[in-house]
Protein backbone atom coordinates (compact mmCIF):
# COMPACT_ATOMS: atom_id res chain seq x y z
CA UNK A 1 0.00 0.00 0.00
CA UNK A 2 2.80 2.39 0.90
CA UNK A 3 4.53 1.62 -2.36
CA UNK A 4 1.32 2.31 -4.23
CA UNK A 5 0.85 5.68 -2.54
CA UNK A 6 4.43 6.63 -3.37
CA UNK A 7 3.83 5.51 -6.92
CA UNK A 8 0.73 7.65 -7.07
CA UNK A 9 2.49 10.68 -5.65
CA UNK A 10 5.59 10.48 -7.78
CA UNK A 11 4.10 11.81 -10.99
CA UNK A 12 2.63 14.75 -9.09
CA UNK A 13 6.00 15.57 -7.58
CA UNK A 14 7.75 15.44 -10.90
CA UNK A 15 4.91 16.93 -12.86
CA UNK A 16 5.06 20.52 -11.77
CA UNK A 17 6.24 21.48 -15.25
CA UNK A 18 2.79 20.78 -16.59
CA UNK A 19 0.08 20.90 -13.96
CA UNK A 20 -2.77 19.61 -16.08
CA UNK A 21 -0.78 16.62 -17.24
CA UNK A 22 0.37 15.92 -13.71
CA UNK A 23 -3.16 16.01 -12.45
CA UNK A 24 -4.40 13.68 -15.12
CA UNK A 25 -1.60 11.22 -14.64
CA UNK A 26 -2.01 11.26 -10.88
CA UNK A 27 -5.72 10.67 -11.14
CA UNK A 28 -4.99 7.76 -13.44
CA UNK A 29 -2.50 6.31 -11.02
CA UNK A 30 -4.85 6.72 -8.07
CA UNK A 31 -7.56 5.06 -10.08
CA UNK A 32 -5.27 2.19 -10.84
CA UNK A 33 -4.26 1.88 -7.21
CA UNK A 34 -7.91 1.70 -6.28
CA UNK A 35 -8.35 -1.16 -8.70
CA UNK A 36 -5.21 -2.83 -7.42
CA UNK A 37 -6.78 -2.91 -4.00
CA UNK A 38 -10.07 -4.09 -5.34
CA UNK A 39 -8.44 -6.90 -7.22
CA UNK A 40 -6.47 -7.80 -4.17
CA UNK A 41 -9.63 -8.06 -2.10
CA UNK A 42 -11.32 -10.16 -4.74
CA UNK A 43 -8.38 -12.50 -4.88
CA UNK A 44 -8.61 -12.88 -1.10
CA UNK A 45 -12.31 -13.65 -1.45
CA UNK A 46 -11.42 -16.49 -3.75
CA UNK A 47 -9.00 -17.80 -1.10
CA UNK A 48 -5.97 -17.23 -3.26
CA UNK A 49 -2.67 -17.61 -1.46
CA UNK A 50 -2.05 -14.32 0.32
CA UNK A 51 1.68 -14.61 -0.12
CA UNK A 52 1.48 -14.85 -3.87
CA UNK A 53 -1.07 -12.07 -3.99
CA UNK A 54 1.24 -9.82 -2.05
CA UNK A 55 4.19 -10.65 -4.25
CA UNK A 56 2.11 -9.93 -7.31
CA UNK A 57 1.03 -6.68 -5.78
CA UNK A 58 4.62 -5.68 -5.08
CA UNK A 59 5.77 -6.58 -8.55
CA UNK A 60 3.03 -4.55 -10.15
CA UNK A 61 3.75 -1.59 -7.89
CA UNK A 62 7.39 -1.70 -8.94
CA UNK A 63 6.31 -1.79 -12.57
CA UNK A 64 4.14 1.21 -11.93
CA UNK A 65 6.95 3.18 -10.32
CA UNK A 66 9.32 2.34 -13.13
CA UNK A 67 6.79 3.41 -15.70
CA UNK A 68 6.01 6.59 -13.82
CA UNK A 69 9.67 7.52 -13.62
CA UNK A 70 10.20 6.72 -17.27
CA UNK A 71 7.16 8.72 -18.19
CA UNK A 72 8.42 11.65 -16.20
CA UNK A 73 11.66 11.71 -18.13
CA UNK A 74 9.76 12.03 -21.37
CA UNK A 75 6.96 14.07 -19.98
CA UNK A 76 7.14 17.79 -20.39
CA UNK A 77 6.61 18.25 -24.11
CA UNK A 78 5.40 14.93 -25.33
CA UNK A 79 2.58 14.14 -22.97
CA UNK A 80 0.29 12.93 -25.70
CA UNK A 81 2.89 10.51 -26.93
CA UNK A 82 3.75 8.98 -23.59
CA UNK A 83 0.40 9.05 -21.83
CA UNK A 84 -1.15 6.21 -23.80
CA UNK A 85 1.52 3.85 -22.54
CA UNK A 86 0.50 4.29 -18.93
CA UNK A 87 -2.79 2.39 -19.21
CA UNK A 88 -0.79 -0.33 -20.89
CA UNK A 89 1.51 -0.56 -17.92
CA UNK A 90 -1.47 -0.66 -15.60
CA UNK A 91 -3.06 -3.38 -17.67
CA UNK A 92 0.07 -5.46 -17.40
CA UNK A 93 0.15 -4.87 -13.67
CA UNK A 94 -3.48 -5.89 -13.29
CA UNK A 95 -2.91 -9.06 -15.17
CA UNK A 96 0.15 -9.87 -13.12
CA UNK A 97 -1.85 -9.49 -9.96
CA UNK A 98 -4.70 -11.55 -11.20
CA UNK A 99 -2.58 -14.37 -12.48
CA UNK A 100 -0.41 -14.45 -9.40
CA UNK A 101 -3.18 -13.93 -6.88
CA UNK A 102 -5.54 -16.50 -8.29
CA UNK A 103 -2.90 -19.17 -8.23
CA UNK A 104 -2.94 -19.98 -11.92
CA UNK A 105 0.70 -20.94 -11.98
CA UNK A 106 0.04 -24.25 -13.75
CA UNK A 107 -1.76 -22.32 -16.44
CA UNK A 108 0.84 -19.70 -17.19
CA UNK A 109 4.45 -19.71 -16.17
CA UNK A 110 5.96 -16.57 -14.70
CA UNK A 111 8.40 -16.14 -17.56
CA UNK A 112 5.54 -16.48 -19.98
CA UNK A 113 3.68 -13.66 -18.26
CA UNK A 114 6.63 -11.38 -18.65
CA UNK A 115 7.10 -12.48 -22.21
CA UNK A 116 3.45 -11.82 -22.86
CA UNK A 117 3.73 -8.35 -21.41
CA UNK A 118 7.15 -7.05 -22.29
CA UNK A 119 7.80 -8.56 -25.69
CA UNK A 120 4.58 -7.37 -27.34
CA UNK A 121 5.55 -3.87 -26.22
CA UNK A 122 8.86 -4.24 -28.00
CA UNK A 123 7.30 -5.79 -31.07
CA UNK A 124 4.69 -3.07 -31.16
CA UNK A 125 7.28 -0.35 -30.80
CA UNK A 126 9.56 -1.77 -33.45
CA UNK A 127 6.80 -2.36 -35.93
CA UNK A 128 5.25 1.05 -35.37
CA UNK A 129 8.59 2.70 -35.88
CA UNK A 130 9.25 0.60 -38.96
CA UNK A 131 5.83 1.50 -40.30
CA UNK A 132 6.39 5.19 -39.66
CA UNK A 133 9.73 5.06 -41.41
CA UNK A 134 8.44 3.00 -44.31
CA UNK A 135 5.35 5.00 -45.09
CA UNK A 136 5.61 8.50 -43.67
CA UNK A 137 2.11 9.88 -43.35
CA UNK A 138 0.58 6.41 -43.74
CA UNK A 139 -1.81 4.84 -41.27
CA UNK A 140 0.47 4.31 -38.30
CA UNK A 141 -2.01 2.19 -36.39
CA UNK A 142 -1.73 -0.52 -39.03
CA UNK A 143 1.80 -1.57 -38.22
CA UNK A 144 0.87 -1.48 -34.55
CA UNK A 145 -2.03 -3.83 -35.16
CA UNK A 146 -0.06 -6.25 -37.27
CA UNK A 147 2.70 -6.22 -34.67
CA UNK A 148 0.18 -6.78 -31.91
CA UNK A 149 -1.48 -9.71 -33.65
CA UNK A 150 1.89 -11.28 -34.48
CA UNK A 151 2.89 -10.97 -30.85
CA UNK A 152 -0.41 -12.40 -29.64
CA UNK A 153 -0.13 -15.41 -31.91
CA UNK A 154 3.50 -16.03 -31.03
CA UNK A 155 3.37 -15.53 -27.29
CA UNK A 156 -0.10 -16.86 -26.59
CA UNK A 157 0.24 -19.74 -29.03
CA UNK A 158 -3.13 -19.05 -30.62
CA UNK A 159 -4.38 -21.64 -33.08
CA UNK A 160 -6.65 -20.97 -36.03
CA UNK A 161 -9.64 -22.72 -34.46
CA UNK A 162 -9.34 -20.61 -31.33
CA UNK A 163 -8.72 -17.45 -33.28
CA UNK A 164 -11.93 -17.84 -35.29
CA UNK A 165 -13.91 -18.10 -32.05
CA UNK A 166 -11.96 -15.27 -30.45
CA UNK A 167 -12.26 -13.08 -33.52
CA UNK A 168 -15.97 -12.33 -33.04
CA UNK A 169 -15.70 -11.68 -29.34
CA UNK A 170 -12.60 -9.61 -29.84
CA UNK A 171 -14.16 -7.62 -32.66
CA UNK A 172 -17.14 -6.87 -30.40
CA UNK A 173 -14.91 -5.79 -27.55
CA UNK A 174 -12.83 -3.58 -29.82
CA UNK A 175 -15.95 -2.04 -31.22
CA UNK A 176 -17.55 -1.41 -27.82
CA UNK A 177 -14.32 0.05 -26.55
CA UNK A 178 -14.01 2.29 -29.54
CA UNK A 179 -17.62 3.47 -29.32
CA UNK A 180 -17.29 4.24 -25.61
CA UNK A 181 -14.05 6.14 -25.98
CA UNK A 182 -15.17 7.93 -29.12
CA UNK A 183 -18.39 8.91 -27.37
CA UNK A 184 -16.47 10.20 -24.39
CA UNK A 185 -14.46 12.44 -26.65
CA UNK A 186 -17.67 14.35 -27.31
CA UNK A 187 -17.73 15.84 -23.83
CA UNK A 188 -14.35 15.07 -22.27
CA UNK A 189 -10.96 16.45 -23.20
CA UNK A 190 -9.01 13.92 -25.29
CA UNK A 191 -6.29 13.54 -22.71
CA UNK A 192 -8.84 12.59 -20.04
CA UNK A 193 -10.72 10.23 -22.33
CA UNK A 194 -7.47 8.36 -22.83
CA UNK A 195 -7.85 6.87 -19.38
CA UNK A 196 -11.30 5.49 -20.04
CA UNK A 197 -10.30 2.24 -21.76
CA UNK A 198 -8.48 1.43 -18.56
CA UNK A 199 -11.67 1.88 -16.60
CA UNK A 200 -13.76 -0.21 -18.97
CA UNK A 201 -11.34 -3.05 -19.04
CA UNK A 202 -10.61 -2.94 -15.37
CA UNK A 203 -14.33 -3.37 -14.81
CA UNK A 204 -14.48 -6.25 -17.23
CA UNK A 205 -11.50 -7.73 -15.51
CA UNK A 206 -13.06 -7.44 -12.06
CA UNK A 207 -16.45 -8.78 -13.07
CA UNK A 208 -14.86 -11.63 -14.91
CA UNK A 209 -13.43 -12.70 -11.58
CA UNK A 210 -16.93 -12.84 -10.14
CA UNK A 211 -18.38 -14.74 -13.01
CA UNK A 212 -15.96 -17.53 -13.51
CA UNK A 213 -12.51 -18.47 -12.40
CA UNK A 214 -9.86 -19.01 -14.98
CA UNK A 215 -9.21 -22.55 -16.17
CA UNK A 216 -6.63 -24.47 -14.24
CA UNK A 217 -4.15 -26.99 -15.53
CA UNK A 218 -3.30 -27.76 -19.11
CA UNK A 219 -0.39 -26.68 -21.18
CA UNK A 220 -2.10 -24.35 -23.59
CA UNK A 221 -2.25 -20.82 -22.30
CA UNK A 222 -5.74 -20.04 -23.47
CA UNK A 223 -8.03 -22.74 -24.66
CA UNK A 224 -11.26 -22.51 -26.63
CA UNK A 225 -13.23 -21.02 -23.77
CA UNK A 226 -13.47 -17.27 -24.13
CA UNK A 227 -13.56 -16.83 -20.37
CA UNK A 228 -10.08 -18.26 -20.18
CA UNK A 229 -8.74 -15.35 -22.11
CA UNK A 230 -9.34 -12.49 -19.73
CA UNK A 231 -5.80 -11.29 -19.85
CA UNK A 232 -5.75 -11.74 -23.54
CA UNK A 233 -8.72 -9.41 -23.88
CA UNK A 234 -7.22 -7.07 -21.38
CA UNK A 235 -4.00 -6.69 -23.28
CA UNK A 236 -5.70 -6.53 -26.62
CA UNK A 237 -8.31 -4.04 -25.51
CA UNK A 238 -5.81 -1.76 -23.92
CA UNK A 239 -3.63 -1.99 -26.99
CA UNK A 240 -6.48 -0.98 -29.21
CA UNK A 241 -7.41 1.83 -26.87
CA UNK A 242 -3.84 3.00 -26.85
CA UNK A 243 -3.51 2.97 -30.58
CA UNK A 244 -6.87 4.48 -31.38
CA UNK A 245 -6.71 7.16 -28.76
CA UNK A 246 -3.16 8.19 -29.40
CA UNK A 247 -4.49 10.45 -32.12
CA UNK A 248 -8.21 10.79 -31.38
CA UNK A 249 -8.81 13.73 -33.65
CA UNK A 250 -7.78 11.71 -36.67
CA UNK A 251 -9.98 8.72 -35.98
CA UNK A 252 -13.55 9.17 -37.14
CA UNK A 253 -16.55 6.97 -36.36
CA UNK A 254 -16.49 5.00 -39.58
CA UNK A 255 -12.72 4.62 -39.73
CA UNK A 256 -12.59 3.56 -36.10
CA UNK A 257 -15.26 0.92 -36.61
CA UNK A 258 -13.43 -0.43 -39.64
CA UNK A 259 -10.17 -0.41 -37.75
CA UNK A 260 -11.73 -2.35 -34.86
CA UNK A 261 -13.08 -5.02 -37.19
CA UNK A 262 -9.87 -5.19 -39.21
CA UNK A 263 -7.84 -5.64 -36.03
CA UNK A 264 -10.05 -8.55 -35.02
CA UNK A 265 -9.93 -10.09 -38.50
CA UNK A 266 -6.14 -9.98 -38.61
CA UNK A 267 -6.03 -12.58 -35.85
CA UNK A 268 -7.46 -15.55 -37.80
CA UNK A 269 -5.71 -14.35 -40.94
CA UNK A 270 -2.26 -14.49 -39.39
CA UNK A 271 -3.07 -17.57 -37.29
CA UNK A 272 -3.93 -19.40 -40.53
CA UNK A 273 -0.64 -18.28 -42.08
CA UNK A 274 1.22 -19.46 -38.99
CA UNK A 275 -0.38 -22.89 -39.22
CA UNK A 276 0.35 -23.09 -42.95
CA UNK A 277 3.99 -22.27 -42.27
CA UNK A 278 4.17 -25.16 -39.82
CA UNK A 279 3.27 -27.52 -42.65
CA UNK A 280 5.94 -26.24 -45.02
CA UNK A 281 9.42 -27.61 -45.36
CA UNK A 282 11.14 -24.35 -44.48
CA UNK A 283 14.93 -24.29 -44.04
CA UNK A 284 15.74 -24.86 -40.39
CA UNK A 285 17.32 -21.45 -39.88
CA UNK A 286 14.18 -19.65 -40.98
CA UNK A 287 11.52 -21.97 -39.64
CA UNK A 288 9.17 -20.67 -36.98
CA UNK A 289 9.39 -17.07 -35.91
CA UNK A 290 11.55 -15.69 -38.79
CA UNK A 291 9.29 -17.05 -41.50
CA UNK A 292 6.23 -15.82 -39.62
CA UNK A 293 7.66 -12.33 -39.22
CA UNK A 294 8.64 -12.21 -42.90
CA UNK A 295 5.08 -13.20 -43.82
CA UNK A 296 3.75 -10.50 -41.52
CA UNK A 297 6.10 -8.00 -43.12
CA UNK A 298 4.98 -8.83 -46.65
CA UNK A 299 1.34 -8.64 -45.60
CA UNK A 300 2.00 -5.30 -43.95
CA UNK A 301 3.54 -4.00 -47.17
CA UNK A 302 0.39 -4.95 -49.04
CA UNK A 303 -1.97 -3.49 -46.43
CA UNK A 304 0.06 -0.33 -46.12
CA UNK A 305 0.11 0.16 -49.84
CA UNK A 306 -3.63 -0.23 -50.19
CA UNK A 307 -4.61 1.79 -47.13
CA UNK A 308 -2.07 4.48 -47.88
CA UNK A 309 -3.93 5.02 -51.10
CA UNK A 310 -7.31 4.77 -49.41
CA UNK A 311 -6.71 7.28 -46.61
Amino acid at each position, binding site marked *: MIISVIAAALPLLFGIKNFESALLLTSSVILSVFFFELVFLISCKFRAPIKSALSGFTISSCVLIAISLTGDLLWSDVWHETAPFFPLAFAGAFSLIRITAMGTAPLVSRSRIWAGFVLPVLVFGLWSEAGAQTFPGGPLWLSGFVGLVLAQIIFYNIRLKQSIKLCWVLGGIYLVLFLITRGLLGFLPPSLAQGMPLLVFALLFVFDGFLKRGPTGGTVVYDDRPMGGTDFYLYSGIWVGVIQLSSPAEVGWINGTLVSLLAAFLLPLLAAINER*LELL*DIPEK*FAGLPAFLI*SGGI*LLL*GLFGLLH*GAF
Partner: protein
Amino acid sequence: MSSLTNLKLTAANAPHLHSGRSSAEWLWGPLLALFPILLLSLMSRGSDAFLIFLLTAASAVGFEVLFKPRFKIANSLFLSALLTLLMPQTADWRMALLGSFTAIVIARELFGGVGQNIFHPALAGMAVLFYFFPQTTAPLFLVSSPLGIIFLYAGGLFLIFKKWARWEIALFFLTGALAGSFPSGGNVFNSGLLLLGAFFIASDTTTSPVTKEGRIFFAFFGGFLTMLWSVTLNSVESLVYALLIMNATVPLLDSAFRLRRRPSTTTAQRVGLPINK
Protein backbone atom coordinates in the same frame (compact mmCIF):
# COMPACT_ATOMS: atom_id res chain seq x y z
CA MET B 1 11.54 -39.88 -30.44
CA SER B 2 11.33 -36.18 -31.06
CA SER B 3 12.03 -36.71 -34.74
CA LEU B 4 9.12 -39.14 -34.84
CA THR B 5 6.76 -36.72 -33.20
CA ASN B 6 7.77 -34.01 -35.64
CA LEU B 7 6.87 -36.11 -38.65
CA LYS B 8 4.07 -34.67 -40.78
CA LEU B 9 2.36 -37.44 -42.67
CA THR B 10 -0.57 -37.22 -45.02
CA ALA B 11 -2.92 -40.18 -44.99
CA ALA B 12 -4.80 -40.94 -48.19
CA ASN B 13 -6.58 -43.93 -49.65
CA ALA B 14 -4.78 -46.05 -52.22
CA PRO B 15 -4.46 -46.30 -55.16
CA HIS B 16 -2.47 -43.17 -55.87
CA LEU B 17 -2.89 -42.20 -59.48
CA HIS B 18 -0.20 -40.32 -61.36
CA SER B 19 -1.37 -37.45 -63.53
CA GLY B 20 1.26 -38.26 -66.10
CA ARG B 21 2.89 -34.85 -65.79
CA SER B 22 6.36 -34.04 -64.62
CA SER B 23 7.35 -31.11 -62.45
CA ALA B 24 9.47 -29.80 -65.33
CA GLU B 25 6.34 -29.55 -67.45
CA TRP B 26 4.62 -27.53 -64.73
CA LEU B 27 7.58 -25.20 -64.47
CA TRP B 28 8.33 -24.68 -68.16
CA GLY B 29 4.70 -24.52 -69.32
CA PRO B 30 3.84 -21.07 -67.90
CA LEU B 31 7.11 -19.68 -69.22
CA LEU B 32 6.23 -20.94 -72.67
CA ALA B 33 2.80 -19.29 -72.45
CA LEU B 34 4.33 -16.01 -71.31
CA PHE B 35 7.07 -16.02 -73.94
CA PRO B 36 5.17 -14.32 -76.82
CA ILE B 37 4.11 -11.29 -74.77
CA LEU B 38 7.55 -11.09 -73.18
CA LEU B 39 9.24 -11.12 -76.56
CA LEU B 40 6.84 -8.55 -77.97
CA SER B 41 7.34 -6.26 -74.98
CA LEU B 42 11.12 -6.53 -75.11
CA MET B 43 11.19 -5.85 -78.85
CA SER B 44 8.84 -2.89 -78.51
CA ARG B 45 10.64 -1.27 -75.60
CA GLY B 46 14.13 -1.45 -77.02
CA SER B 47 17.52 -2.47 -75.72
CA ASP B 48 16.91 -1.16 -72.19
CA ALA B 49 14.14 -3.68 -71.72
CA PHE B 50 16.41 -6.49 -72.94
CA LEU B 51 19.14 -5.44 -70.55
CA ILE B 52 16.77 -5.25 -67.60
CA PHE B 53 15.32 -8.66 -68.39
CA LEU B 54 18.76 -10.20 -68.81
CA LEU B 55 19.95 -8.71 -65.56
CA THR B 56 16.81 -9.78 -63.69
CA ALA B 57 16.97 -13.30 -65.10
CA ALA B 58 20.71 -13.69 -64.53
CA SER B 59 20.52 -12.44 -60.97
CA ALA B 60 17.46 -14.60 -60.23
CA VAL B 61 19.22 -17.71 -61.48
CA GLY B 62 22.37 -16.64 -59.65
CA PHE B 63 20.51 -16.25 -56.37
CA GLU B 64 18.91 -19.63 -56.85
CA VAL B 65 22.26 -21.27 -57.56
CA LEU B 66 23.76 -19.64 -54.48
CA PHE B 67 20.86 -20.69 -52.33
CA LYS B 68 20.31 -24.19 -53.65
CA PRO B 69 22.91 -26.52 -55.13
CA ARG B 70 20.24 -28.51 -56.98
CA PHE B 71 18.36 -25.84 -58.78
CA LYS B 72 15.65 -25.64 -61.43
CA ILE B 73 15.81 -22.42 -63.36
CA ALA B 74 12.42 -22.49 -65.11
CA ASN B 75 10.51 -20.91 -62.22
CA SER B 76 13.21 -18.28 -61.71
CA LEU B 77 13.05 -17.35 -65.40
CA PHE B 78 9.25 -17.16 -65.24
CA LEU B 79 9.40 -14.88 -62.20
CA SER B 80 12.05 -12.72 -63.89
CA ALA B 81 9.82 -12.33 -66.92
CA LEU B 82 6.87 -11.31 -64.73
CA LEU B 83 9.01 -8.85 -62.78
CA THR B 84 10.34 -7.30 -65.97
CA LEU B 85 6.87 -6.90 -67.45
CA LEU B 86 5.62 -5.23 -64.25
CA MET B 87 8.57 -2.85 -63.93
CA PRO B 88 8.39 0.72 -65.19
CA GLN B 89 10.43 1.73 -68.21
CA THR B 90 12.60 3.87 -65.96
CA ALA B 91 13.83 0.77 -64.12
CA ASP B 92 17.57 0.49 -63.63
CA TRP B 93 19.99 -2.24 -62.55
CA ARG B 94 19.28 -1.63 -58.85
CA MET B 95 15.60 -2.38 -59.31
CA ALA B 96 16.39 -5.50 -61.30
CA LEU B 97 18.72 -6.84 -58.61
CA LEU B 98 16.52 -5.91 -55.66
CA GLY B 99 13.38 -7.26 -57.31
CA SER B 100 14.90 -10.61 -58.16
CA PHE B 101 16.57 -10.91 -54.73
CA THR B 102 13.28 -10.29 -52.94
CA ALA B 103 11.33 -12.59 -55.22
CA ILE B 104 13.75 -15.50 -55.28
CA VAL B 105 15.44 -15.41 -51.90
CA ILE B 106 13.00 -13.77 -49.50
CA ALA B 107 9.59 -14.67 -50.90
CA ARG B 108 10.43 -18.11 -52.29
CA GLU B 109 13.55 -19.83 -50.98
CA LEU B 110 13.16 -18.77 -47.34
CA PHE B 111 9.78 -20.47 -47.37
CA GLY B 112 11.19 -23.71 -48.70
CA GLY B 113 11.46 -23.15 -52.46
CA VAL B 114 9.19 -23.69 -55.43
CA GLY B 115 5.66 -24.68 -54.46
CA GLN B 116 5.91 -23.66 -50.81
CA ASN B 117 5.71 -19.89 -50.79
CA ILE B 118 2.75 -18.13 -49.15
CA PHE B 119 3.03 -14.96 -51.24
CA HIS B 120 3.60 -14.76 -54.98
CA PRO B 121 7.33 -13.99 -55.32
CA ALA B 122 6.93 -11.52 -58.18
CA LEU B 123 4.32 -9.57 -56.21
CA ALA B 124 6.52 -9.48 -53.11
CA GLY B 125 9.42 -8.30 -55.26
CA MET B 126 7.33 -5.52 -56.76
CA ALA B 127 5.97 -4.45 -53.35
CA VAL B 128 9.53 -4.02 -52.10
CA LEU B 129 10.41 -2.07 -55.23
CA PHE B 130 7.47 0.27 -54.62
CA TYR B 131 8.83 0.91 -51.15
CA PHE B 132 12.40 1.66 -52.21
CA PHE B 133 11.48 3.41 -55.45
CA PRO B 134 8.14 5.07 -54.74
CA GLN B 135 8.14 7.45 -57.71
CA THR B 136 7.74 4.77 -60.36
CA THR B 137 4.75 5.96 -62.33
CA ALA B 138 6.35 5.63 -65.76
CA PRO B 139 4.73 3.30 -68.35
CA LEU B 140 5.49 -0.40 -67.89
CA PHE B 141 7.62 -2.66 -70.03
CA LEU B 142 4.44 -4.65 -70.61
CA VAL B 143 2.93 -3.79 -73.99
CA SER B 144 -0.86 -3.39 -74.09
CA SER B 145 -1.18 -3.04 -77.85
CA PRO B 146 -3.86 -5.09 -79.64
CA LEU B 147 -1.24 -7.70 -80.55
CA GLY B 148 -0.09 -7.78 -76.93
CA ILE B 149 -3.66 -8.35 -75.74
CA ILE B 150 -4.05 -11.18 -78.24
CA PHE B 151 -0.82 -12.77 -76.98
CA LEU B 152 -2.01 -12.47 -73.39
CA TYR B 153 -5.36 -14.08 -74.18
CA ALA B 154 -3.66 -16.79 -76.22
CA GLY B 155 -1.13 -17.52 -73.48
CA GLY B 156 -3.83 -17.55 -70.81
CA LEU B 157 -6.14 -19.83 -72.76
CA PHE B 158 -3.21 -22.11 -73.51
CA LEU B 159 -2.50 -22.38 -69.78
CA ILE B 160 -6.16 -23.12 -69.06
CA PHE B 161 -6.39 -25.63 -71.90
CA LYS B 162 -3.33 -27.48 -70.60
CA LYS B 163 -4.76 -27.19 -67.05
CA TRP B 164 -1.72 -25.30 -65.80
CA ALA B 165 -4.06 -22.50 -64.69
CA ARG B 166 -7.58 -22.67 -63.30
CA TRP B 167 -10.29 -21.20 -65.50
CA GLU B 168 -12.35 -20.05 -62.52
CA ILE B 169 -9.54 -17.85 -61.25
CA ALA B 170 -9.12 -16.03 -64.57
CA LEU B 171 -12.86 -15.71 -65.08
CA PHE B 172 -13.72 -14.50 -61.59
CA PHE B 173 -10.71 -12.21 -61.41
CA LEU B 174 -11.95 -10.41 -64.51
CA THR B 175 -15.53 -10.48 -63.19
CA GLY B 176 -14.38 -8.95 -59.92
CA ALA B 177 -12.40 -6.35 -61.82
CA LEU B 178 -15.48 -5.52 -63.86
CA ALA B 179 -17.52 -5.10 -60.67
CA GLY B 180 -14.81 -2.91 -59.16
CA SER B 181 -14.51 -0.80 -62.29
CA PHE B 182 -17.99 0.72 -62.03
CA PRO B 183 -16.94 3.69 -59.88
CA SER B 184 -14.00 4.59 -62.13
CA GLY B 185 -15.23 3.22 -65.43
CA GLY B 186 -11.90 1.55 -66.19
CA ASN B 187 -11.37 -0.86 -69.04
CA VAL B 188 -11.06 -4.49 -68.01
CA PHE B 189 -11.05 -6.90 -70.91
CA ASN B 190 -8.41 -5.18 -72.99
CA SER B 191 -6.14 -4.09 -70.15
CA GLY B 192 -2.82 -5.89 -70.51
CA LEU B 193 -2.04 -5.57 -66.84
CA LEU B 194 -5.33 -7.10 -65.70
CA LEU B 195 -5.00 -9.95 -68.18
CA LEU B 196 -1.47 -10.60 -66.96
CA GLY B 197 -2.80 -10.63 -63.39
CA ALA B 198 -5.74 -12.88 -64.21
CA PHE B 199 -3.92 -15.49 -66.32
CA PHE B 200 -0.36 -15.49 -65.04
CA ILE B 201 -0.25 -14.16 -61.47
CA ALA B 202 -3.53 -14.84 -59.67
CA SER B 203 -3.78 -18.31 -61.18
CA ASP B 204 -0.48 -19.44 -59.66
CA THR B 205 -1.30 -22.81 -58.11
CA THR B 206 0.96 -22.35 -55.08
CA THR B 207 -0.51 -19.08 -53.91
CA SER B 208 -4.17 -19.68 -54.71
CA PRO B 209 -6.69 -21.74 -52.71
CA VAL B 210 -7.12 -25.47 -53.13
CA THR B 211 -10.91 -25.57 -53.27
CA LYS B 212 -13.03 -24.21 -56.09
CA GLU B 213 -15.15 -22.06 -53.74
CA GLY B 214 -11.99 -20.63 -52.24
CA ARG B 215 -10.56 -19.88 -55.67
CA ILE B 216 -13.71 -18.07 -56.74
CA PHE B 217 -13.69 -15.93 -53.59
CA PHE B 218 -9.96 -15.27 -53.93
CA ALA B 219 -10.11 -14.33 -57.60
CA PHE B 220 -13.24 -12.20 -57.39
CA PHE B 221 -11.99 -10.07 -54.53
CA GLY B 222 -8.51 -9.89 -56.05
CA GLY B 223 -9.94 -8.36 -59.20
CA PHE B 224 -12.43 -6.23 -57.30
CA LEU B 225 -9.82 -4.68 -55.00
CA THR B 226 -7.44 -4.15 -57.89
CA MET B 227 -9.91 -2.01 -59.76
CA LEU B 228 -11.34 -0.35 -56.67
CA TRP B 229 -7.95 0.92 -55.57
CA SER B 230 -6.79 1.84 -59.03
CA VAL B 231 -8.71 5.09 -58.46
CA THR B 232 -6.18 6.29 -55.90
CA LEU B 233 -3.13 4.17 -56.74
CA ASN B 234 -1.53 3.52 -60.08
CA SER B 235 -2.79 0.35 -61.70
CA VAL B 236 0.26 -1.84 -61.16
CA GLU B 237 0.44 -0.89 -57.48
CA SER B 238 -3.20 -1.71 -56.93
CA LEU B 239 -2.75 -5.08 -58.67
CA VAL B 240 0.30 -5.95 -56.59
CA TYR B 241 -1.16 -4.91 -53.24
CA ALA B 242 -4.58 -6.43 -53.83
CA LEU B 243 -3.17 -9.79 -54.85
CA LEU B 244 -0.65 -9.80 -52.00
CA ILE B 245 -3.48 -9.35 -49.52
CA MET B 246 -5.52 -12.04 -51.21
CA ASN B 247 -2.45 -14.34 -51.06
CA ALA B 248 -2.45 -13.81 -47.31
CA THR B 249 -6.05 -14.96 -47.07
CA VAL B 250 -5.39 -18.24 -48.88
CA PRO B 251 -4.66 -20.37 -45.76
CA LEU B 252 -7.82 -19.00 -44.15
CA LEU B 253 -9.88 -19.65 -47.29
CA ASP B 254 -8.51 -23.18 -47.49
CA SER B 255 -9.60 -23.69 -43.93
CA ALA B 256 -13.01 -22.11 -44.49
CA PHE B 257 -13.79 -24.13 -47.63
CA ARG B 258 -12.45 -27.50 -46.66
CA LEU B 259 -12.12 -30.31 -49.14
CA ARG B 260 -15.06 -32.66 -48.76
CA ARG B 261 -14.29 -34.97 -51.65
CA ARG B 262 -14.44 -38.72 -51.31
CA PRO B 263 -12.87 -41.33 -53.56
CA SER B 264 -14.87 -41.59 -56.75
CA THR B 265 -17.15 -44.59 -57.11
CA THR B 266 -15.18 -46.02 -59.97
CA THR B 267 -11.88 -45.82 -58.14
CA ALA B 268 -13.36 -47.29 -55.01
CA GLN B 269 -15.10 -50.06 -56.91
CA ARG B 270 -11.96 -50.84 -58.87
CA VAL B 271 -9.96 -51.56 -55.76
CA GLY B 272 -12.87 -53.22 -53.95
CA LEU B 273 -13.34 -50.65 -51.19
CA PRO B 274 -16.69 -50.32 -49.42
CA ILE B 275 -18.51 -47.23 -50.67
CA ASN B 276 -19.75 -44.81 -48.03
CA LYS B 277 -22.93 -43.09 -49.08
